[in-house]
C-alpha cells in the first residue's frame, strides 16, 4: 500500500488539486435532504402498512378457499365424479394466482419505493 502511495506521489498534482475552488454544500441542502428522508420514510411506512394488510386479506381468502376445497374433496370421496375435481382445480389455480400476484405486487412496490 505504501508502495502505491510512493509510486504515485506527485507534489505538483497534489498542490494543484488542493488549491481548487470547491463548493461546499450548505445546511439548506442538509435540511432539504432530511425532509426528503422523513417524507420517504413516512410514505414507505404507509405503503408497507397497506401492502401488509392487503397481503393478509388476500392470503386469508386463499387459505379459506383451500380449506373449503379440502373439506369438499374429503366429503365427496376423492375423484368419484367430475364435480369433485372442480375444487381441486380451483385450489390449484388459486395457489398459482397467489404466487403470480405476490411476485408482481412485490416488484411493483419495489419500483415505486426505490
Amino acid at each position, binding site marked *: *500500500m505504501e508502495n502505491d502511495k510512493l509510486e504515485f506521489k506527485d507534489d505538483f498534482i497534489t498542490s494543484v488539486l488542493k488549491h481548487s475552488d470547491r463548493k461546499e454544500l450548505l445546511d439548506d441542502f442538509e435540511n432539504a435532504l432530511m425532509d426528503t428522508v422523513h417524507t*420517504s420514510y413516512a410514505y414507505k411506512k404507509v405503503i408497507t402498512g397497506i401492502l401488509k394488510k392487503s397481503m393478509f386479506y388476500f392470503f386469508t381468502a386463499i387459505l379459506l378457499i383451500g380449506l373449503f376445497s379440502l373439506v369438499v374433496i374429503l366429503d365427496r370421496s376423492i375423484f368419484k365424479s367430475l364435480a369433485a375435481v372442480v375444487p381441486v382445480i380451483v385450489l390449484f389455480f388459486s395457489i398459482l394466482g397467489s404466487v403470480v400476484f405476490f411476485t408482481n405486487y412485490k416488484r411493483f412496490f419495489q419500483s415505486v419505493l426505490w
Partner: protein
Amino acid sequence: MENIYMDRVLSGDIDAFRYFIKTYKDMAFSIAFSIVKDEQYAEEVVQDAFMKAFNGLKKFHRKAAFKSWFYRIVVNESFLRLRSIKKDRKMISIEEQSDAIMEVQFEEITESHGAKIHKVLSLMEPKESLALELFYLQELSINDMMQITGWSKGNTKVILHRARKSLRHIWKQMS
C-alpha cells in the same frame, strides 16, 4: 461510532441519518462533481445517493466501511447520471473541447487560481478526474479505489497515470 448511528436509523430514529449527511455530503459532492462536471447535477446525484443509502441501509452488511459502500453508490449514481446527460446532449467533440480550453485561457486573466484548477478538472475525462479526486484529495489507497470504482488494480493504476499526464497537459495548454 458509525455503527451506533446505523443502529439508531434502523431502529426508527430517522434524525440519526443526519450524521451521515453531515459527514459525507461534501466529499460525496466532490466525487460526483468530478464525474458529472456540473454543480446542479452533482447535487442531485448526492441527494439520490443518500436516498439510496438510506433505503439500502438494512442490506448493508458492514463488512466494508460505510464510507467505501457509500462512495460506491455515489460513483455508480454519477456514471448513471452522466450517461443520461450524454444522451440528452451529444458529447463534446475533441474540437469543441480544445475550443473550451481556449475559452478558459481567455477567462483565466480575470479568474482566481482556484477557479482555473476547477476548470482544468472539468475538462478532464470523468474517470481520470475521479481517480485524481479519490487518490490525491480523499487520500484513499489503490485498494479502496478498487472497492469504490469496481476497477481492477491494473486499470486503476493505468487511469491514475493517464490522469496525471492529462492534468499536466491541460495545465500546460492553459498557462
